[in-house]
């Protein structure tokens, strides 16, 4: 399955197609945001090539949008470095569950890490790891970057032609994460995680409105840590109390949605 045969392998081509299909849902959110970036770059009086340069050099949506205003104000590099660090530190948490072990070592894996945007994380943690292949994940991520870069170029064009672009496309990002949350929280098993996350984000917004995302993730991780040690203690007690009796009914299965 190597060498010349690799490029015509129908199995591999099917996986690439799956990756492209995976990227469509998030693409609906990424492309308009890329357009917004292109429009902002031009409106801020910055050179048009900055839009693709940001999308290739950094490839992290929210930080790129933020950078446009920082660059237009000629912010010092050190301030930019600190801001990028603060906004992007959430990526630290993605390593805990992103299925990177399914991606082939070498260039594919390096690309997959470089292109680990929120949307790529959200797409591939929702699919069981055993159904994922390297070709599928990497082509999905390549497609996402193509939407982002392409959207940016279209945005640059729009800013040069239309006096007032249509508003509201950016809602696609909100809709995207709503839909993904609904899909991730389908089973009753996820209820504790969702409740703890809701609590975390609520507190974070009240206590640290400017750093709500990062604060919520730190708090959520802390709460999950507490949960781990509490359930582990519960499990050892349970195991001691009832040896190996299999329950007659499947509790979780009985409550279907």
């Amino acid at each position, binding site marked *: 399955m190597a060498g010349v045969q690799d490029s015509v392998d129908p199995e591999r081509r099917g996986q690439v197609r799956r990756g492209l299909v995976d990227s469509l849902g998030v693409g609906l959110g990424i492309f308009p945001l890329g357009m917004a970036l292109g429009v902002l770059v031009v409106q801020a009086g910055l050179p048009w090539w900055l839009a693709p340069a940001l999308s290739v*050099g950094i490839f992290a949506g929210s930080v790129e949008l933020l950078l446009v205003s920082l660059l237009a104000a*000629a912010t010092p590099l050190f301030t*930019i470095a600190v801001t*990028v660090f603060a906004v992007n530190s959430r990526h630290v948490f993605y390593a805990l569950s992103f299925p990177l072990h399914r991606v082939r070592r070498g260039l594919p894996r390096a690309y997959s890490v*470089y292109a680990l945007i929120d949307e790529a994380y959200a797409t591939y943690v929702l699919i069981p790891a055993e159904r994922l292949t390297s070709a599928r994940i990497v082509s999905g991520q390549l497609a996402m970057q193509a939407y982002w870069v392409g959207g940016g170029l279209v945005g640059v064009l729009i800013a040069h032609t239309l006096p007032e672009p249509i508003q*509201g496309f950016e809602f696609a990002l909100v809709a995207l994460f709503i*839909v993904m949350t*609904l899909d991730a929280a389908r089973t009753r098993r996820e209820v504790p995680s969702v409740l703890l996350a809701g609590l975390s984000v609520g507190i974070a917004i009240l206590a640290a409105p400017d750093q709500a995302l990062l604060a919520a993730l730190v708090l959520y*991780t802390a709460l999950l840590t507490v949960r781990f040690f509490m359930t582990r203690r519960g499990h050892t007690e349970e195991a001691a109390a009832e040896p190996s009796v299999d329950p007659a009914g499947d509790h979780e299965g009985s409550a279907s949605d």
Partner: protein
Amino acid sequence: MTDTAYLLAAVLVAGLITLALRALPFAILKPLRKSRFIQALGRWMPAGILLILAVVVFRGEIVADPGRAWAVVIAAGVTVAVHLLAKRRALLSIAAGTACYILLLAII
């Protein structure tokens, strides 16, 4: 016009920091993969992280222009309703919610 060298340096700095934040955690976690604690976190985190992202971008859209809060709430409701009633087709739900939002902003 802003200096080209400054813009390129900024992209480079921001790019390297972002890459380090994405790559280092994988390197650090590698020896811990077998840890039951790390495995539990990996299993529990996705649903909650997605909810947190959803709430933060939802709030961000309202904060950006509080006068549009009602449109954000209605469009989010439409997204949820379409997703649950129309067999969870992500593309359809996202398109419906976004189209609703664009229309609401256009008619006011």
